């Protein structure tokens, strides 16, 4: 915004080049603000600073501080003294298993969604044209934006023992295969809806669009001339894909993995509804702050995903993933 010249109040010219100041207190105040860009910008960012800076970051910091408190084991009250005891509790086998289980799940969900997302993104970015482009766009956007709980509910319907998947396997005479998979220790279970495998499938489904979009964006930015040049220089389609397209799409995959990894780390609803009764970090946080009333331990648990994501983001930044967002 350009700074206006000084007011023409003192000018003797009968037809001033600049408009005369308007009357009234409010219009004059508005004019004064508009003529002072710094004040104007300050007023524009003041509400957001108060809202996010004070309310949001304030409560985040308050939470972090509480993770350095501990809980009195006899009275169940929070002792407001600095201690690292609560962080020590995270290393107990029971709690450490929760962290390990969650990180492993997040890693496998990320790998699976990268594998599933790549062909969809590749086709949408390089082959789909016109009507098909719209179909792919909406086909990715609708599952992304439709209700999270409804999607989880849909999978409860799909994975139920009496549901469509069991029926499908029976129709294809593959019931033995389903039973063999469910018989595998650890990932299997009574039915898909109460096994780790079920949790894994639902996580992958729900976060898949978050992987497709950045991969598609990075693939769309690979210039066609580059692949043509590679082909002209004698690269086979396979070499072209492995040596030209894949390295250029990698930042998109890393960007997508930030979402899939972070979202899996923090989710507590999917493993609660579909999965075995063993806890994930999100559920641990929820039960610690709720029924157990142990806010310090809950706070310490929330620090784990923050630290993991911090390291992850730092590594991703070094791989240039942020340009693909």
């Amino acid at each position, binding site marked *: *915004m350009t700074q206006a010249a000084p007011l023409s109040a003192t000018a003797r010219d009968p037809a001033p080049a600049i*408009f005369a100041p*308007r009357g009234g207190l409010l*219009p004059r105040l*508005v004019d004064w*603000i*508009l003529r002072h860009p710094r004040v104007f910008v300050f007023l524009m*960012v003041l*509400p*957001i600073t108060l809202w*996010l800076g004070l*309310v*949001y*970051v*304030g409560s985040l910091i*308050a*939470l972090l501080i*509480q993770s350095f408190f501990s809980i009195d084991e006899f009275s169940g009250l929070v002792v407001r003294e600095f201690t690292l005891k609560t962080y020590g509790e995270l290393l107990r086998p029971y709690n450490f298993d929760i962290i390990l289980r969650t990180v492993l799940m997040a890693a496998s969900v990320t790998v699976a969604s990268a594998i599933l997302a790549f062909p*969809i993104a*590749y*086709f949408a970015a390089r*082959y789909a*044209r016109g009507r098909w482009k719209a*179909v*792919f*766009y909406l*086909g990715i*956007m609708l599952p*992304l*934006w*439709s*209700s*999270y*709980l*409804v*999607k989880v*509910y849909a999978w*409860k*319907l*799909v994975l*139920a023992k*009496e*549901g469509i998947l069991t029926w499908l396997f029976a129709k294809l005479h593959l019931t033995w295969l389903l039973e063999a998979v469910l018989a595998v220790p650890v990932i299997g279970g009574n039915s898909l809806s109460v096994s780790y495998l079920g949790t894994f499938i639902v996580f992958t489904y729900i976060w898949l*669009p*978050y992987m497709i*979009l950045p991969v598609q964006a990075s693939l769309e930015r690979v210039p*066609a001339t580059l692949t*043509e040049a590679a*082909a002209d220089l004698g690269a086979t389609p396979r070499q*072209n894909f492995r040596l030209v397209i894949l390295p250029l799409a990698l930042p998109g995959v890393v960007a997508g993995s930030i979402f899939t990894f972070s979202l899996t780390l*923090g989710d*507590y*609803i999917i493993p609660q*509804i579909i999965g075995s009764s063993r806890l994930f970090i999100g559920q641990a*946080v*929820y039960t610690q*702050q709720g029924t157990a009333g142990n806010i310090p331990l809950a*706070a310490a648990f929330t620090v784990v*995903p923050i630290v993991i*994501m911090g390291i992850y983001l730092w590594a991703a930044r070094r791989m240039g993933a942020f340009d693909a967002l």
Partner: protein
Amino acid sequence: MHSDACAPLALRLAAFGGLIFLLAPIALIFVYAFTTEETSYQWPPPGLTTKWLAVTVGRPDVWQALGLSLKVAAISTTIALVLGTLTAAAVSRSRFFGRETISLLVILPIALPGIITGISLRSAFSLLEIPFSTWTIVLGHATFCIVIVYNNAVARFRRTSGALIDAAMDLGADGLQTFTLVILPNIGTALLAGGMLAFALSFDEVIVTTFTAGQQTTLPIWMLEELVRPRQRPVTNVVAMAVVLVTFLPILAAYYLTRDGEHTAGAEK
């Protein structure tokens, strides 16, 4: 590799298979809403009926939850529209101290897992002894709705020439006139798209809400209770279908509103 070349068969199969994987579970919801089976998730449905539509319409708890959800979404979207637009205008139009910090601050609520936002707000409420109310829910929702409006508005502001504003002011428009006659028509569709997506996001939110709602029931919380302890499966089926329909409309509308721009709304939920 030309774009008009035909895709290899394996790639086509994988891409369309992926698309079916994405859409089939949602389509299933529409079948289950009409099933006659009441106590299990049996497939194929033993029969079809429209009886449960009427039963759901007559349920006061569903209507109350829906009312609260709409109210929260409307207030949060309004707050997000004002704050998001102001911030987008400041960040895209000028350079100032702390500009980078503010653009980071805005994306923080969706970059961090929702459970962290939820628990930190809840513990702040309990530290400050604030009782749960509609406003505590709104506080949480508006926090992450701001970024949706902000992203859409910032993209539009970057494409709008700043000279337009200067010209309007030079021609004697006051601040309000410049805003209503020049700025608003330029960013209007972006705000509409951002506002609708923010509304959809708030309407659907459950993770932060479980921490900030106390005893109140929004529609997603109602759904969650039914998921954890199914009591009325047929009613849940119908509600699920209704929610899918309600969320589809803003997405379709946002798609058509921002189709021409290089930036598509909702690409970074």
